[in-house]
């Protein structure tokens, strides 16, 4: 929509003309507006547990309660295999990246609509909003991660030497959430149906991801199809790096597929977002 050029005088020249079709991503703009991104993230974090009784404890309660439920139903009643790890630890390790992902996805999808007063009154690269929504989820993750470390000590499970790969799996979860979130946030501007799709989608996606169960129960010939869900790779990776469970036979192939899918969703989401961006202020 606009072009910025710098003259020798360092004076910005802004060209505003109608655009159509696909436009460049202009990720550089994001960097120029990094302070805004920082402040929006900071606002989201700051405000999240305001006027709640338990405050940041919620960041721990949510995964813990889910873990208890999973342990009772899938661990005790259904007696699902947890690859030799205590089921509590087995599910909690998976719940952390999963809840980070589902929260980031939900927040990002809503982000454009919930920030509509800013969008209609001020110019800034709109991408700042979904990006900051994704990042702000990391705080909850960090808090819950401390609990996870405590549990590992309690159960006497030592992290494997592959723990250094954890940030990479974390990144994969965030990028997937961002990619899907970009699509939905742009769609949400026009179609409020997104608000109804997201909880449903997250629910289905949870069962398609080996959070409550072990990915070993998926037969080998389906593993590639299974890898189309990048979150499956993330969850397996987390367990592998922390608990030392099996990564699977064709780990490198399935992981590559997961990463590829994630990148495709992200890049297409970015382009779609940029394309829809120009009408956001008029439609939202």
């Amino acid at each position, binding site marked *: 929509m606009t072009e910025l050029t710098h003259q020798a005088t360092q004076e*910005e020249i802004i060209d505003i003309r109608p655009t159509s079709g696909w436009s460049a991503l202009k990720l550089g703009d994001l960097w120029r507006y990094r302070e805004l991104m920082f*402040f929006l993230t900071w606002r989201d974090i700051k405000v999240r547990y305001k006027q709640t009784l338990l405050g940041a404890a919620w960041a721990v309660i949510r995964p813990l309660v889910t873990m208890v439920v999973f342990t009772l139903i899938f661990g005790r009643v259904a007696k699902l295999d947890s690859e030799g790890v205590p089921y509590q630890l087995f599910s909690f390790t998976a719940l952390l990246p999963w809840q980070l992902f589902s929260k980031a996805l939900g927040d990002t999808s809503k982000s454009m609509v919930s920030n509509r007063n800013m969008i209609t009154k*001020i110019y800034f690269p709109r991408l700042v909003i979904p990006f900051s929504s994704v990042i702000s989820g990391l705080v909850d993750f960090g808090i819950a991660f401390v609990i996870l470390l405590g549990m590992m000590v309690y159960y006497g499970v030592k992290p494997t030497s592959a723990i250094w790969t954890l940030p990479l799996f974390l990144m994969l979860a965030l990028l997937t959430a961002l990619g899907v979130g970009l699509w939905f946030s742009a769609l949400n501007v*026009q179609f409020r*149906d997104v608000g109804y799709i997201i909880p449903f989608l997250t629910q289905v996606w949870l069962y398609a991801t080996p959070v409550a169960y072990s990915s070993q129960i998926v037969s080998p010939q389906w593993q590639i199809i299974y890898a189309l869900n990048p979150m499956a790779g993330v969850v397996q990776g987390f367990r592998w790096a922390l608990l030392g469970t099996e990564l699977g036979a064709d780990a490198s192939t399935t992981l590559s597929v997961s990463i590829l899918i994630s990148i495709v969703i992200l890049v297409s989401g970015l382009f779609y977002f940029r394309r829809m961006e120009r009408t956001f202020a008029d439609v939202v």
Partner: protein
Amino acid sequence: MSDVVVRVENMSKKYRIGVAPEKYATLRDAIVETLSSPLRRIQKSLPAGKEADSVDTIWALKDISFEVERGQVLGVIGRNGAGKSTLLKVLSRITEPTEGHVRIHGRVGSLLEVGTGFHPELTGRENIYLNGAILGMKRALIERKFDEIVDFSGVEKFIDTPVKRYSSGMYLRLAFSVAAHLEPEILVVDEVLAVGDAEFQRKCLGKMSDVAQEGRTVLFVSHDMSAISRLTEETIVLEKGKLAYRAPTQEAVDYYLSSGFKTGERVWTAEEIPTQAAPFRPLALRVKNHQGDVVDLVRSTQPFSIEIEYRLVEPIQALRVGLYLRNMRGAYVFTAFDTDNPEQYKAMATRPPDHYVSRCVVPADILNEGRYALGINASAYRVKRYFQDLRALVFNVDGTDAPGKQWAERRRGVTRPRLDWEINQIR
């Protein structure tokens, strides 16, 4: 390099009407429409679809071209829906133009609203940082200006209180203070001064004129003609999305206040006149400004005239034709008849049949700003009331430059006389 910092060329902006229902368009609608009427969709995308195009779209701005020079403070005025806000939105890059081109040299700071992005749960301090960042201020700049901002807002005591506990006045003051310390090369300001109490409004106006004097380029939109007159030297007038006029502010304001209105007139058709009015036949009632144009908006600082045009089919004795002027609450401002002067009354003891106009001039500095209703009455005292219409015409009075306009407050009272005050010191 020329000194033109904003150049707008043939810029147009089209909106689809029915944006409101479309806003909440659902996927289902889109899918149903796509499936059920592929033909219609194809038609729409063909050039022949242009007709349909003109029906459900509206040009909020059409072919706007103008330039703003460095350091100029340009006013933008126009009626509601004239496209002022759309123009500002395009200039501040919130929305794209449909056609045309805008070139801006320098950073644009836009103030279409104060307090954008304020979060009620955050404290005043936190909101200053957040809002500053949203407005495009660098963190270092906010830090440097922080004390000044707090000082200007006058809410020091509550700076660490969540803004949801603020009174609305405090909230606005803090919000404006952040905005006022923005330092862009080009500032685009919408009606933000229409908020807060009178005292704070004055402070804001003062700050705005400081900005103007610092040589910053400013585009200032307002409905407040006094503010426009005070802050700007040149003004453009938008009418229905088109640039109608550009001139030195005083001229542009005059043009705006008197243009486009042919409604300062009430015409009676034969069917509207009750039979008992005969032989009096009202024809028209008009409000005219001092230049003689029929207007529905007059300036309180200028005299204006009211005329009643009528016909007498037969002679009437002791006729008086007159006016009631009331404000919108129904309070009478005055009642006056064309034969109030005894000599004129005697001279007109019998009015022969003819076509008449009774005209009076309402002197300057009588009416307060606001809306007024004019009624007419034609009667012979204690004999017969021929015709009466208590609400024949409504017109507006604009208070630009009226006494006391240096304060943005709304003055009480239906009149706003220019009184001769003396201030003596008594020792």
